[in-house]
């Protein structure tokens, strides 16, 4: 019975994926991509990875979809729609891609017994960290260096996006997110949803220590609420030169790096936590990171400055 459900899911996913590639209109492609993100987050639930499901729904489908939709809106008048090249080339490339799929499927179907796993190693030291969500423990304790570098990638990505502003606009506001035609529904949602969304965001961050959730998921929920307010025109995008904004971008990674160096004298190594204090330190880092992630994600969606800074 449950396998039939999985089979339907797989068919839905593959149809949506093929549609994403083959549909002519690029806006339809982006919408199919967002649908695909939501379907995939259901698959992550089926694979018992709730943390990943939340991230895929929020970041993979939601935030990425928003960036692509905005790009569509700005591309339409400029860039011509491109059709796929001739049938013979399509068949040749299709054969190549089928070969790749066959190779990957062969790896999946090859029996590996026992399956390689690091779960026992994760379980062995969970008590010392004092948190019950294994994914958060991996992200912020065992492999904290990966997570730290990923935050640095986010900050660098934002600097990259900002750096694409023309010289004249440097430090100004990004292009407005406000919908072209005022919408009563959007306005209503932007007034009603944020209080709930902000509570959900904080809950996900706070709860991430012991249950599914965490900084990414919570931070994205906060970013979504901020974006919603700006899209309804109830708030203005800040100037990218604003000092308070830049401090918010930097606070999470900066605290993480500071905690990393403090590890040298607290526990004898970069990013090591002293026994017994691991949980409070991690929660403090998570709160700062969630704030930074929320601001960075929203600013990445907003894009580079597109107006002259006000004098």
């Amino acid at each position, binding site marked *: 019975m449950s*396998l039939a459900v*999985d*089979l339907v899911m*797989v068919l839905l996913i*593959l149809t949506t*994926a093929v549609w994403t*590639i083959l549909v002519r209109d690029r806006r339809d*492609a982006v919408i199919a*991509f967002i649908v695909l*993100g939501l379907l*995939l987050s259901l698959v992550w639930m*089926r*694979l*018992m*990875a709730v943390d*990943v499901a939340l*991230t*895929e729904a929020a*970041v*993979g489908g939601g*935030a*990425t979809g928003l960036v*692509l939709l905005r790009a*569509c809106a*700005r*591309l339409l008048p*400029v*860039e*011509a729609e*491109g059709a*796929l*090249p001739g049938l013979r080339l399509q068949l040749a490339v299709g054969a190549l*891609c*089928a070969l790749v*799929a066959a190779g990957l*499927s062969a790896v*999946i179907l090859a029996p590996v017994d026992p*399956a*390689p796993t*690091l*779960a*026992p190693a*994760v*379980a062995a030291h969970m008590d010392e960290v004092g948190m019950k969500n*294994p*994914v958060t*423990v*991996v*992200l912020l304790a065992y492999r904290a260096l*990966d997570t730290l570098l*990923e935050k640095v990638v*986010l900050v660098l990505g934002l600097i*990259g*996006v900002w750096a*694409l502003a023309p010289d004249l606009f440097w430090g100004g506001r990004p292009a407005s997110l406000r919908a072209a035609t005022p919408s009563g529904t959007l306005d209503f949602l932007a007034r009603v949803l944020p209080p709930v969304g902000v509570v959900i965001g904080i809950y996900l961050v706070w709860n991430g220590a012991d249950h599914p959730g*965490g900084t*990414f998921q919570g931070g994205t929920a906060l970013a979504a609420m901020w974006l919603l307010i700006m899209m309804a025109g109830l708030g203005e995008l800040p100037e990218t030169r604003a000092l308070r904004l830049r401090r918010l971008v930097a606070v999470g990674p900066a605290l993480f790096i500071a905690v990393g160096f403090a590890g040298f004298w607290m526990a004898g190594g970069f990013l090591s936590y002293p026994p017994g204090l691991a949980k409070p330190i991690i929660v403090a880092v998570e709160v700062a990171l969630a704030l930074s*992630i929320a601001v960075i994600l929203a600013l*990445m969606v907003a*894009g580079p400055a597109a107006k002259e800074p006000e004098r």
Partner: protein
Amino acid sequence: MTPATLYGICAAALVAIGLFGLILHPTPLRKVISFNLIGSGTFLLFGIAARRGAAAGFLGDPIPQAMVITGIVVAFAATALAVALLLRMLEAGAPTVDGSPDTPDDLSP
């Protein structure tokens, strides 16, 4: 066949579908979308490894799960940067693969 195996084959197909679009689509935005499909397929392959590695009372190996979460966020950052780059490229009037309005006779066949 277990659900994990079924979704594994689905992930392999997603990578192939994304690769098809990445190679054949002439416009940059469609290439970015296709690239994201390859990413989704790859992440799902990690998910299969995680599900199969369920042990020690966990329903999945948390290490690949944590790597996928990091990956999804980095993929978003890369997409946002790519989109900003292609918008700037068109604003600056640089010829794209299929040609911008300023360059009617372009590189495409």
